[in-house]
């Protein structure tokens, strides 16, 4: 039996979507965390009063997490507050959760699920799907896991409180990361061929594309800067030719 009614949990879930709303360089998402946990605090301490304000001030301190996994912390902290846990213990718990919720989310979403979903959308565009089909497929695939993590995270947090760390360790996140990154790599291979294929009819264009693919593959995350430099270089040359042409 949850210590918080369904209505309160729904409000906390909805507010957790805005957890990064006041992101800042001092308390990071601290104020957003307090904003998200506030319906739970109001249920426990009343709609107004000194106890509520003290609890809000405690939770508006420094906090950080991946935004989607913040619902785990919101759920667990509201459970601890409902259980009457000492504020110092709650604070230590939040500090302990910060790093792991951040790195889990970064690995699962930013470096696996998002690239995979984006490239799926791009492959659909290149395969000739309607623009809205490609966008719809991307948003559906991406947000299915996003929303599942938000909803399940809050549920697990509220139900398990301090025990949430163990449950997170048992969650099949690594399996999703492994499978997602394999799928992403497969889709990247497919997308690269689909983009470069039209240029293969011309030997020079084909060679340039193959060289760019090799460059991208070996430079990895540094490729963006090199490609921007190439873009600037080509534009500068074109303008120079243009000025010479106009002058002649």
């Amino acid at each position, binding site marked *: 039996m949850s210590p918080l009614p369904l209505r309160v949990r729904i409000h906390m879930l909805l507010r957790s979507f805005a957890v*990064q709303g006041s992101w800042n360089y001092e308390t990071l998402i601290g104020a957003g965390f307090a904003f998200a946990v506030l319906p739970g605090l109001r249920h426990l301490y009343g709609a107004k009063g000194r106890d509520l304000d003290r609890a809000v001030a405690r939770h508006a301190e420094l906090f950080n997490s991946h935004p989607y996994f913040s619902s785990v912390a919101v759920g667990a902290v509201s459970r601890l507050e409902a259980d009457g846990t000492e504020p110092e213990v709650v604070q230590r718990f939040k500090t302990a959760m910060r790093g792991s919720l951040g790195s889990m989310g970064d690995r699962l979403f930013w470096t696996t699920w998002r690239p995979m979903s984006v490239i799926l959308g791009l492959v659909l565009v290149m395969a000739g799907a309607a623009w809205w089909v490609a966008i719809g497929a991307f948003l559906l695939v991406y947000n299915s896991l996003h929303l599942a993590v938000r909803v399940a995270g809050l549920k697990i947090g509220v139900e398990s409180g301090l025990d949430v760390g163990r449950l997170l360790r048992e969650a099949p996140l690594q399996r999703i990361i492994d499978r997602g990154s394999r799928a992403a790599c497969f889709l990247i291979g497919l997308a690269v061929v689909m983009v470069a294929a039209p240029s293969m009819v011309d030997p020079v264009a084909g060679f340039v594309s193959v060289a760019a693919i090799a*460059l991208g593959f070996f430079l990895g995350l540094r490729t963006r800067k090199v490609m921007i430099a190439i873009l600037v270089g080509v534009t500068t040359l074109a303008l120079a030719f*243009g000025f010479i042409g106009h002058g002649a």
Partner: protein
Amino acid sequence: MLLDPTAWLLLILLGGLVAVDGTSVGQFMISRPFVAAALAGWAVGDPIHGMVIGLVLEAFHLTVLPVGAARYPEGGPAAVAGGAIYAVSDLAASTLLVTVLLVLLLEWVGGETIRLMRQGNIGLVAEERPGWKTAAALERRHLTAIGLDFARGMLLVIAGILLLWAGHRFVLPRWGMGEDVPQVVLTALVAGLLASSVRLVGLRGWFAAAGAICGVGLLLFSI
């Protein structure tokens, strides 16, 4: 006239929406360049060409990671401006290349405004002032920060559309390289940027190779 009033209104609202989607609210990824640019193209009547520039911008944005306090270029509002302006242009390869370059500049400007906003949010929700951390004050200040982010996105789209329009008028008449070179360069850049994202997801070369072989097979089958 550059754009009709309805298109302006739709684009400005879309700019605010994708700005808050980027960080403040939801992160449903409507702020991804290929989504934002296609929606902007749709707002001006040509989603297909909005999607075309969105695809190029997305390739540039794939390896950008919004981790912690990192400074990163902001894709959403810039893609809205880029998608709209490219969709109402002559659709030439040189136009696409110049638009992409200017949008990348706008992305950097957007990233800087995020940094300034986050600095400003310290005064709003993080400074130690006696008595402000009440429930009502926290809610008010947090929602104010989200409202400011929305306004920032709207302003970026207005500035971006005007910058791109001016950039087109200045650069494109002086373009002296024809259309073949920008076509080849853009294709190669997108292919190279897509290949670079294999490193992002874990350098599983065999799976990428299998995907490439499937791609070749599909192309041969479709000929």
